[in-house]
């Protein structure tokens, strides 16, 4: 007993996708990417559900899993951020080998088990879904499985409460006022002034663009530390310096073009502090 060819094609195509997604979930270095891969696999599974006449489940799969659960994942990923844990380097000796071994062995056994299971009886969901899949499920849920259903309801509530309890952080002491913070800064003598804002001498003042010190080197202080932690600080130091050089060069040319006269002091004024010594020298020469 087999299924329609269309389904077969769909299976083979999407099946591969699903497997790739799964592998990606396991293999991707960054959690975000893993999450996306997983989402993909889930969608594929949803399609399979639909294809197998489990319409309700298919939809639920998309809505609940890819919709809610995976988003929750992504959310947490953002919250937690990238840590050293993301490296794929193994730390426990022999762990990976054992894992792969067990995995393969288990998989083979599982498949072997399915292989020699007698799966020849194949009654489609034709008349089970006769009254509509959803209605069918509903009938079961509210008759045979009503008790389990209620329990799961309770479970969900409990889970929600539990999550709140876990994540809720009790503030033990009064938050420090701005004044106190500044006083603390003075006391400790580290960057007494407010932190420099990012984006100084910047084409645009995006958060991930570090501010530059007068010599044009980017200051890490100016960037949100999360970004720093993730190493997502945009590398702009070199470019800016180059632009400063260009500027000076052009101004020099302009000074030469104008020759002696009123242009010089502008030039001198224009020149940044490191040329002062030269000015004095010239002054002395006169």
């Amino acid at each position: 007993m087999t299924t329609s060819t269309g389904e077969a094609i769909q299976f083979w195509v999407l099946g591969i996708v699903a497997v790739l997604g799964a592998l990606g979930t396991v293999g991707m270095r960054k959690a975000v990417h893993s999450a996306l891969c997983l989402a993909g696999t889930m969608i594929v599974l949803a399609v399979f559900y639909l294809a197998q006449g489990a319409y309700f489940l298919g939809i639920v799969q998309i809505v609940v899993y890819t919709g809610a659960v995976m988003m929750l994942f992504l959310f947490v990923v953002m919250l937690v951020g990238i840590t050293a844990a993301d490296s794929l380097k193994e730390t426990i000796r022999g762990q990976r080998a054992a894992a792969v071994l067990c995995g393969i062995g288990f998989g083979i056994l599982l498949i072997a088990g399915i292989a020699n299971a007698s799966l020849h009886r194949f009654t489609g969901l034709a008349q089970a879904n006769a009254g509509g899949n959803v209605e069918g499920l509903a009938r079961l849920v509210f008759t045979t499985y009503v008790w389990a259903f209620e329990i799961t309801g309770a479970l969900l509530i409990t889970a929600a409460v539990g999550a709140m309890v876990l994540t809720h952080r009790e503030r033990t002491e009064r938050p420090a006022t701005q004044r106190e913070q500044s006083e603390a800064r003075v006391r400790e003598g580290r960057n007494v002034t407010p932190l420099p804002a990012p984006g100084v001498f910047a084409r645009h003042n995006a958060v991930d663009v570090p501010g530059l010190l007068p010599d044009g080197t980017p200051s890490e202080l100016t960037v949100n530390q999360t970004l720093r932690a993730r190493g997502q600080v945009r590398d702009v130091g070199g470019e800016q310096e180059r632009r400063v050089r260009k500027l000076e060069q052009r101004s020099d040319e302009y000074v030469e073009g104008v020759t002696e006269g009123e242009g010089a002091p502008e030039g001198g004024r224009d020149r940044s502090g490191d040329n002062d010594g030269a000015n004095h020298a010239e002054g002395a020469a006169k």
Partner: protein
Amino acid sequence: MDPLIGALVGAPLLGAGILLVGGRRLDRTGHWIGCLWAAVSFVIGVVLFADLLSRSPAQRTLTSHLFTWVPVAGFQADVGFQLDQLSMTFVLLITGVGTLIHIYSVGYMEHDENRRKFFGYLNLFLAAMLLLVLADNYLLLYVGWEGVGLASYLLIGFWQHKPSAATAAKKAFLVNRVGDMGLSIAIMVMFTTFGSFAFRPVFAHVGDVSQGRLTTIGLLLLLAACGKSAQVPLQSWLGDAMEGPTPVSALIHAATMVTAGVYLVVRSGAIFNAAPTAQLAVCVVGAVTLVFGAIVGCAKDDIKKALAGSTMSQIGYMMLAAGLGPIGYVFAIMHLVTHGFFKAGLFLGAGSVMHGMNDEVDMRRFGALRTYMPVTFVTFGLGYLAIIGFPGLSGYWSKDKIIEAAFAKGGTEGWTLGAVALVGAGITAFYMTRVMLMTFFGDKRWQPDAEGHEPHPHESPKIMTIPMSILAFGSVFAGGLFSINSAFLKWLQPVTGHSDGHSPVATWEITVATLVVLILGVGLAWQSYGRQAVPAVAPRGSLLTRAARRDLLQDDFNHVVLVRGGEHLTRSLVYLDHTVVDGAVNGTAAGVGGLSGRLRRLQNGFVRSYAVSMLGGTAVLVAATLLMRGV
């Protein structure tokens, strides 16, 4: 009349209950309550006696079945009583002497704050003893048997604050237990043999049982008798038992309880008659003890211990007689009764002396008391004459008959036993004279007691002397009265049966011989204790004397072999239990601990490695299931 039999036992039991449960509030009246219940049982006894006399000798057996005690399949134990002439005799002796001694004790224990308890115990003893002699089956008899043991334990150890008393009590109970073991095994053998242990069925079927079994039963019963009646080899407790108050020694360790063994043998006559070997054993034990006790009696300076030795010896006579079979049973009992009178009298006398001498017991510190306590002197003297078998007095009638019977057994056995009995009579005369002389004659050897009080000997109060006098009366005339056209014999015959063995020696010859021996004994005693003064401290004495002072080293033997050995055994067992039995277990535990210590390494705490093992396990399980399906 049957319910009365129950009442006979019940009365003192009730008394004991009242006194022991009643508590301190009865302290002032307790002793009278005790006497009352004892007297009640005596009265009942007399009534029953009258009833028996009114019947024809054949119908003189009353039985009353109270209730079924332990019914289990074939094992039917009943609480039932059987009152026949034999029991009756004992009942009268026990209740009679018992009551007298109750009354005596009122005076003797006057200054003891636990007097109520004392009377409670005495009543308890009466009840148990009556149960013993009235039971109609061996198991119930066993109850009484151990009951008297308990009472004796409580009374010997009555002054529990004295370590010696406590030890003596314990010793008595333990030695008795050894005997009791014999009795209980005997009961088991009876049960396996006859399917019952009640007197009637057992005695009825003695005929159809192999002699070997009967001998076994007989010997076991003898063991029990040895324990209770302080016969060799289980006699060692009696001497120490004198730690108890003197009335106790008089009642329990002279008149009644110690004679229970004789009762047992006579009661089981049917069995013994059919087992000559056992009978011979009884005779031998009796004869040996007879001499043993007599020798011990000669050496002791403690008046009570000397009397205790004498008691052993006299019971030896009874056992000997009982062992002789139908010839002797009657005389055994008769001697038992007369002995009950005069020995109780002697003990009460001794008690009265101690009462006057600040509880001094060492005869070497007495002397010349006859003038200070005349009544005691007279009663004690009569008792003395009775026990040495002075012609006409009780002892004469019973003891001569026994010696006669011993000879009548015939053959070498007969001669030996007879000779022993004869010699015994002589020694008896010797040590009793010794006691008499050292206590009442000679010069004063009084010494201040531990607190330094000078003794002021004085006659005991009436309440003590009256019972003594009555007993003295008994010890003078009982034997004679019994022997008037052998009334006692006729009375007991239906129960014990009797056969006149023809003795190889004529009666008058024996009487003469006895008298001769008697005079020899007295003379010898006079020679050594009457003529020259008694040293206040005991001379070292001959080897035999020293041995005799130590109960012929019996105690030393027990101490070395049983006590020391036992201690070592238990100590080593305790050690073994701790090291070997327990050690094995703990060793295993330690091993497991070490192993787990190794395995613990696997627990590196990383969730993932645990997960690996889980997956591996699952894989194995799947594999297993698949294989199972494959099979």
